[in-house]
């Protein structure tokens, strides 16, 4: 029997080594694998290269990983946010390396890694600093720059439901980088609200087929759902809404 489910987040992140490249899903809060990042911090691996769209907010998640000096390098598109003080401080102090990648090139480079593409010509970034030193070519009257795949040792991301074969479905814009990061990592780890019976996910709607997924861990239903139905009552960070409050 194939069973990719693991019981706890500690098992889900077991074996991540110092120096590993770790992809972390999420776009802002949506799709961020909060529990897996916490488990990674607990697990202790350091000298990591993190591939993610952002470089952490506030003092939790990737920011907490950064604060503990576990990260050597960040590959991302948008490290600067209103509350990205942890990354900001480390970057200014020269304590973390940054590879800035336009968001679409980041996504396509991850996809290329998963799809066995050796390199591709993209029009994004042509004529900008972010293409400096890169091979450029005119094809059919348009300029392109050559970009290479980004592979990872591990991908950590969040999905809505999974089954024991590792098939996954997502929810709304929390889908973002999860499905492609799963294809690009040697070990792809998904946290899900719920593990469901094999065969209960609609085969037409599975977004990440199990072939890409190595471990699935259930972390309980997100706070703004009740038995799968949206009930709201939270801030954008998913925290309970105090009376009259609506966080931006």
């Amino acid at each position, binding site marked *: 029997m194939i069973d990719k489910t693991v019981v706890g987040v500690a098992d889900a992140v077991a074996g991540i080594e110092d120096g590993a490249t770790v992809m972390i899903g999420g776009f802002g809060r949506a799709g961020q694998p909060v529990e897996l990042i916490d488990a990674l911090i607990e697990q202790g691996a350091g000298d990591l290269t993190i591939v993610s769209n952002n470089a952490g907010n506030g003092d939790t998640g990737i920011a907490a990983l950064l604060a503990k000096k576990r990260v050597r390098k960040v590959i991302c598109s948008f490290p600067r946010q209103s509350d990205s003080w942890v990354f900001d401080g480390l970057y*200014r102090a020269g304590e973390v390396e940054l590879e800035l990648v336009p968001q679409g090139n980041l*996504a396509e480079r991850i996809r290329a890694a998963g799809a066995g593409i050796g390199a591709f010509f993209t029009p994004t970034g042509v004529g900008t600093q972010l293409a400096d030193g890169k091979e450029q070519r005119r094809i059919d009257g348009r300029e392109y720059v050559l970009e290479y795949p980004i592979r990872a040792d591990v991908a950590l991301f969040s999905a809505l439901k999974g089954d024991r074969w590792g098939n996954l479905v997502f929810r709304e814009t929390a889908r973002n980088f999860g499905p492609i990061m799963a294809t690009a990592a040697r070990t792809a780890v998904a946290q899900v609200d719920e593990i469901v019976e094999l065969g209960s996910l609609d085969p037409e709607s599975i977004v990440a087929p199990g072939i890409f997924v190595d471990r699935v861990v259930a972390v309980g239903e997100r706070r703004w759902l009740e038995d799968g139905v949206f009930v709201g009552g939270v801030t954008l960070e998913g925290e309970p809404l105090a009376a009259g409050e609506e966080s931006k």
Partner: protein
Amino acid sequence: MTTRIDRSQLAARIATDIPEGAYVNLGIGAPTLVANALPEGQEIVLHTENGMLGMGPRPAEGQIDPDLINAGKQPVTALPGAAYFHHADSFGMMRGGHLDVCVLGAFQVAQNGDLANWSTGAPDAIPAVGGAMDLAIGAKQVFVMTDLLTKQGGSKLVETCTYPLTGVGCVTRVYTDHGVFDTSPDGFRVRELFGDNTIAEIAELTGLSLKEA
């Protein structure tokens, strides 16, 4: 004193140039105001690069869904007909030229359409680009929404960008608080001036030689 319109007036002006049925991406910041100005009863499909077509307005009080946000990480809703997709598909859509219009902010726009909107090149700034470069090169029409002048009074319309570029020759039209300008190989063309503005005045403000469209 030249005539200036405010941001919501400018958003409304931009909205009149977006035809029904268009697929549109509204960049972070001021361009999001265009959403509120789109004509009632017309269907225009909004794209957000974090994986959705058919984006609707901000949800009602207490109905924030942390899984449903726009590229500016603000809560949004989904309209009937919406579809979700992952980041590679979303940016494929952009890069592949499927968006009819995107509206972006700018630090500088050069008369040949070069855009600078992601970095002022300040040495101590944290660089961050997000999806700006993909939007700049992807949409069939790239509109810029901006004040004509910086707070210091410098012109954002320039002969050549001095800030780091976002995209080369990508901007088709610039909507400013003073008027609307088309980029062209031989300089900005004045498409429309608001209120009492004259070409001569704008030429003086910007230091550019301007032509009628």
